[in-house]
């Protein structure tokens, strides 16, 4: 009896420690994702501010957005993966990179983070920087450009989000498991490119929560639905296609050039 009691007492601390460790990791993921999204929205949207007093340009804000992504991924990439985007989270779930419970938690964290990030912006800048002559709907609110129909807008958001999700899927590809150092730079420049490409037409949101933050704070909801439909559908479609058609099986060993020699050999055999 006394021996049994001692055993049970000894095992308890370990079990508690393990459980706490697991819980701590899950909590860190959630708050990491929340903080990452807040940082991203705050820096990126501040970089979009344009008034007669604070000059700006489409090019500068596009580049700022991409570099904001770089910062967020560099800070929290190893904590939570720094998805920052429900479309990426959806793609990760369908790709098999995360489970659905975690996916839902990420979504909540991203929505909350976007609201907090934009709220910080509203708190620290003067009122006419948020809404003014240059930004009647509010700074960083994504809107359709004149001349672009709603259907074209959805299609543009869909296609550019396809490109973004393909970048994410290739990063998760087993063959790229050892090539992770410069992921923040690659993602950052990718987002810069996509915003420079399509920013003038639809705002190049590619991210429902990124559009949600400014929309809630400024009560600007024109065509808001296309920034949910386009990206999420693209996230689902692209991840499934990439998974079935392009996903690699094994990690390529780069320690020697044998891998390359083998590849050449196989090609020649063909």
């Amino acid at each position, binding site marked *: 009896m006394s021996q049994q009691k001692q055993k049970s007492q000894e095992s308890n601390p370990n079990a508690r420690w393990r459980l706490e460790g697991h819980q701590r990791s899950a909590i860190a993921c959630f708050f990491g994702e929340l903080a990452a999204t807040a940082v991203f929205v705050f820096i990126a949207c501040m970089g979009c501010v344009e008034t007669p007093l604070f000059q700006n*340009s*489409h*090019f500068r804000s596009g580049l700022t957005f991409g570099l904001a992504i770089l910062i967020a991924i560099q800070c929290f990439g190893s904590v939570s993966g720094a998805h920052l985007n429900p479309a990426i989270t959806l793609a990760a779930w369908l790709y098999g990179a995360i489970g659905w419970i975690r996916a839902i938690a990420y979504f909540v964290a991203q929505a909350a983070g976007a609201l907090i990030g934009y709220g910080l912006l509203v708190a620290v800048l003067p009122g006419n920087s948020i809404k003014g002559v240059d930004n009647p709907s509010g700074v960083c609110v994504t809107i359709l*450009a*004149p*001349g*672009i129909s709603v259907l*074209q807008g959805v*299609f*543009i958001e869909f*296609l*550019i989000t396809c*490109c973004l999700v*393909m*970048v994410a*899927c*290739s*990063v998760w*590809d087993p*063959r*790229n498991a*050892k*090539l*992770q*150092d*410069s992921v923040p*730079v*690659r993602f950052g*420049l*990718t987002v*810069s*490119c*996509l915003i*420079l*490409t*399509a920013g*003038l*037409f639809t705002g190049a949101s590619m991210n429902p929560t990124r559009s949600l933050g400014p929309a809630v704070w400024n009560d600007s909801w024109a065509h808001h639905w296309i920034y949910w439909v386009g990206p999420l559908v693209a996230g689902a479609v692209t991840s499934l296609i990439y998974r079935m*058609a*392009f996903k*690699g099986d094994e990690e*390529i060993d*780069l*320690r*020697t*050039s*044998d*891998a*390359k020699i083998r*590849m*050449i050999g*196989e*090609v*020649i055999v*063909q």
Partner: protein
Amino acid sequence: MPVQQPQSAEIGHQMKMSSEEPPSGKQTCRSQSNCWLLQRRQLDSITTVLAEMIATAMLMFLGCMGSVENSVFTNSDFQSALNFGFVVLICIQCFGCVCGAHLNPAVTLATYVYNMISLPMALAYFVAQMVGAFIGYGLLKAVLPESAIYSAENPNGVCLTSLNSTLTPWQGLAVEFLITCVLISVCCGVWDPRNATKQDSLPVRFGLAIACLSLTAGQLTGASMNPVRSFAPAIWNGFWDDHWIYWVGPMAAALITSVIYKHAFRRELEESEVDETTMSTKRTSEAELA
């Protein structure tokens, strides 16, 4: 030699294993294995070519969308050139590990010269690139208004490569040839066996290299460096002025540069170099201990 011996030993070992199997089992396993491998290889080839097509479509769609300029959508040479470099980054990141993401018949030709691809596969890549570029530009025309495709700044169509009015065709040819030489040199540097283990930031390096070349020659010839990239807008808009220089320049540059690099600069990885790598690691650890 020492590196190769273990491989041959493994092969011998496998042969012994197969010979020890019973006759019926042997035949069954062999035929099944061969069938499976053949199907898998064929499927991989199809996937590879499909990936190359999608990658080229992405290049055209995103690159040309980033070049749109009219009274409503502002732009600049700097922005569109940098954007093109970033587009290449995206394409290489997405499909670099699938098909190599050549995006360019000139690069494919250089790959063939470098013995990294077979002739049938090279031809398949070329067709995939042509089809992909055509689809990409077509997609752009489908999602943008007419005023974005044709404008005062782009009367013949957005993203058409054309000579600056101050250049003669032969000067344009020389420019395209020289900048494509630089591009192919970057490719050959990447493929060199000594760089086999340095692949992490490849997309960034390629993207910024393309951005640099686009910024350099964009206002002179459009900095095409890529026959299919010029072919798609030309065929969609029916504009063929000086189109030949965008085929002759890049392809000639690819052939000449890859042959020179292959015979003059390429080196195999030697045992001593591997030891040097190990030595540097040891020195680092010793320094840390001290």
